[in-house]
């Protein structure tokens, strides 16, 4: 399914880039192990996170494809010129790979692993990251716990720097690192059993992720009552699970879906709901205030839950939350606990920007600037409750949980 998306172009491109990435200088020195040289995300002007999401939802228009291609093309041109500057060194992909293999004797890259995991639509990005890190443990040739820890740290750093825009990737890596380094029980075991224990735990995370979604769905059932109208925005797997469970429980409710421009996630969401025989209505994004008076509950997913208790989510979340707040409608957020991140944005611009191409259907003159940011920040005072696998929390508890976790 994902093969239809634009990301395969990017993936291919990025594969090439990655293998080219180690510059000749670093090769000569060859002091840093391959994990440390953290190949930067080549498509730095496009958020990889949102691209993956779009790919999963498989709503890609031709225009989108073209723009993505253009973006990549532009980038590869840059790369080319850079390569020329370096003096056109003929390092092929094979050469780079070979170098890595010689470097530490393993042809393994976290990012490859991560990319292969994140292509599964059902798998959250954080879980993909954790699976990739688990693979690092598995393939590691470290002989002491400390060595393994350092290796993991490097791997998670390279993952994080690969896509700085993704909150849940960063949060997932951090959670995993804490989980690994904070186990005092490991100190008393010999290395091999400790390692296998770590792997075992890492394996569990995938299941926990699915379980978390189930827990959230169960918890949120009390908040969906018969005859209510729910407004959803964006495509959130958790919210879908919530609504699916509600439908299975024979609750009667109506869903209003926003269109979710530019990647039209709302269309896909409404498709999914229609399959469940839930009455669903599509709105254009600008019709939210118009329909808000018939809405009883607003449901969001979250790309990241930040320390203030606010959420970072797809563009448009903030304005819907504002409208809902001013009309006194409850705003509920469904998010897994591994999306809690130690970020504290003060305002909308206080985040690393996540860009994505936008399809307007008509050519836009070059003089016209386009706001391409893919997400916004909703402050905690506009949220009513968060449904997480830790329970139903108020926004202020998020920080308490994070402090407990990180201190």
């Amino acid at each position, binding site marked *: 399914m994902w093969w239809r998306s634009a990301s395969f172009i990017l993936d291919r491109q990025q594969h090439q880039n990655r293998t080219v990435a180690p510059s000749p200088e670093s090769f000569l020195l060859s002091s840093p192990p391959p994990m440390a040289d953290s190949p930067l995300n080549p498509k730095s002007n496009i958020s990889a996170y949102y691209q993956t999401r779009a790919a999963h939802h498989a709503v890609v228009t031709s225009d989108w494809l073209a723009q993505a291609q253009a973006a990549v093309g532009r980038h590869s041109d840059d790369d080319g010129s850079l390569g020329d500057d370096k003096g056109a060194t003929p390092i092929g992909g094979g050469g780079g790979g070979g170098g890595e293999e010689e470097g530490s004797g393993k042809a393994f890259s976290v990012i490859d692993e991560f990319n292969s995991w994140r292509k599964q639509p059902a798998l959250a990005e954080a879980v993909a990251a954790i699976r990739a890190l688990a693979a690092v443990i598995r393939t590691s040739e470290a002989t002491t716990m400390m060595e393994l820890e350092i290796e993991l740290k490097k791997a998670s750093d390279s993952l994080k720097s690969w896509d700085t825009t993704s909150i849940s990737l960063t949060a997932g890596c951090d959670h995993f690192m804490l989980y690994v380094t904070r186990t005092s029980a490991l100190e008393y075991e010999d290395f091999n059993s400790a390692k296998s224990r770590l792997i075992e735990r890492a394996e*569990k995370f995938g299941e926990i992720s699915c379980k978390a979604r189930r827990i959230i769905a169960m918890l949120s059932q009390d908040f969906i009552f018969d005859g209510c109208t729910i407004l959803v925005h964006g495509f959130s797997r958790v919210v879908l699970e919530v609504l699916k469970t509600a439908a299975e429980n024979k609750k009667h409710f109506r869903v209003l879906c926003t269109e979710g421009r530019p990647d039209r996630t709302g269309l896909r969401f409404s498709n999914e709901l229609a399959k469940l025989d839930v009455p669903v209505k599509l709105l254009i994004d600008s019709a939210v205030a118009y329909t808000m008076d018939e809405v009883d509950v607003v449901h969001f997913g979250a790309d990241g839950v930040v320390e203030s208790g606010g959420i970072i989510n797809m563009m448009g979340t903030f304005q819907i939350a504002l409208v809902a707040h001013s009309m006194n409608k409850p705003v509920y957020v469904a998010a897994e606990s591994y999306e809690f991140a130690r970020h504290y944005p003060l305002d909308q611009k206080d985040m690393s920007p996540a860009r994505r191409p936008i399809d307007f259907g008509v050519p836009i003159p070059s003089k016209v600037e386009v706001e391409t940011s893919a997400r916004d920040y909703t402050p905690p005072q506009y949220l009513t409750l968060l449904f997480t696998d830790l329970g139903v929390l108020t926004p*202020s508890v998020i*920080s308490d949980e994070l402090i407990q976790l990180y201190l």
Partner: protein
Amino acid sequence: MDPRRTARTVSDPKVRQVGFFTPAPTERSISDPPRFQDPIQPPSPSPTQVNDHSPSGNSLSPVMIPPAHHHSDNFLRTALQVTSPTKAFSYSAKTVTIPPENEDVASSFSPGRKVVSAKSPSSFPGVKASSVPASELTTVSVVNLPPGISEKAGGASVEVQNDRPVSAKTLKEKTNKAERRALQEAQRAAKAAAKAEGTKASSAASKVVTSANTKPSKAAKSSSQKNDGSQVAASEKKGGDRAPEKDRKKDAPHPRMQYDDKSRVEKAKKRAVVKQTEARNRVELFRHLPQYEHGTQLPDLETKFFELDPMHPAVYKVGLQYLSGDIHGGNARCIAMFQAFKEAIKDYSTPPEKTLIRDLTARISSYVSFLIECRPLSISMGNAIKFLKNRIAKLPLALSESEAKSTLMLDIDLFINEKIILSEKVIVKHAVTKIQDGDVLLTYGASSVVEMILLHAHELGKHFHVVVVDSRPKLEGQLLLRRLVRKGLSCTYTHVNAVSCIMQDVTRVFLGASSVLSNGTVYSRVGTACVAMVAHAFRVPVLVCCEAYKFHERVQLDSICFNELGNPDAISKVQGREEINYLDGLVNQENLQLLNLIYDATPSDYVSMIITDYGMIPPTSVPVIVREYRRDHLWS
């Protein structure tokens, strides 16, 4: 109004785990503290502390209501030890109206009273009769009344009588012949003193210690101790002698004493080392706070330097510096205090037949009460003292004295380095991430942490503009401004009056804090609340920078119930502007009340973020930090 607060009750804190958890029990201990039943509830002090410390021993937690036995305790003690009610009472006008009722009260107790009562108020303010050393020792102090107060002295001396009866009664029961003679001599001496009118009258025969112009209860006590040698029998009958520092410790005024409670004020005053003259015309709402005439205590205290033998010179020095305002700012005061304590511990040697743990705690408490008399403690200092006392109490008994001392000194150094200096660095590291190129940062007053943040951001090559907002009378902002301008930052300087005009250009507000309370209220230099509210109205994020050791579990809703009053003259006069003299001659008017508040409380609604050594947290998470912090450092 804030949904995150109203809704807070929805989820009760259950035992929860964060992140990826497996049912393994080993993980549990990491994420949840089992020791706490209730996250908000301050932990009860260990029983040993409750037992061996008198009210002032655990008085450092300002939330505590003094236990009931405090009063009776005090009364007993007043009967036993030196009663020294003399003091230049310069009470406010309200006090003057009281005498009639007081006279009644006093006269109802009068039968059999042996103590001289002040019949001629204008000339004779009071007598100190000591009963501990029994017989011959009597202290008479003649107080030079400041001009303008003498007509009120009548009221004052009646008040003296007011708390005399209890002690007089016990005196009557317990006096023997020798004591009665002593009292008579005291009467005679007092009359002589009254005639002499303020001259140093001393009656050599009865070893009367007369001190002019001062009320050295300390001195009286220490001299009484000296005399004790000859009256061992008498003092034994009274229950043995007490270590002077222990007396001091018990006598320390409660940090949150209500200064409108007259009887308690008097009791505190009797024992005070620092002679504080109370200012008149206090503002109605703030009568419960101590307000003193400034500038009178310093020369007074300096003269007593050699009389206060249990006070360590380093502590004395720091106290004087607090009093004169040479050391100000939460961190500076805390570090200075700890360094003085370190000196004192270095020179400390346990007296024979005493244990270091108890004696040193008492000693520290006496130092602290001296410092409180110089200037009310800041919350950060209270926390630091709590830490030190806890360390002393936790010392293993097996430790030798020198080991114990070096351990404590190491602890103090560690506290200063980790909790103050290092945490400042961590705060700077966090805060700098919130400064971007092109920002306009506003700060109010002079906070050491904010200064470090600005300088560090400048060093990192960030381009930003600083607005320093300042206010009278301290004008601390100028000091900050000077240091910033020297380093080449581009700055704007304005007074708080203009803050609403300049706020529209500001992108971030950085504020320091004296303390952060557990409901997220920021307790800081007066004016901070105003700046934060204006910033909130303009939707500018307000970042409060505060070290975690300044957090306190108290909850405060306004800035009235706990605050500090500064010198009212500072606001009535403008330095260097002689022509502004509209208030000349009006300051002592009864219908004029001057209020110079030092601190105010900013509600958490106006604070976007608190930057502390544990990272950047919303104000709602302060209780968590308080809890974690205490677990780390008070019970470790």
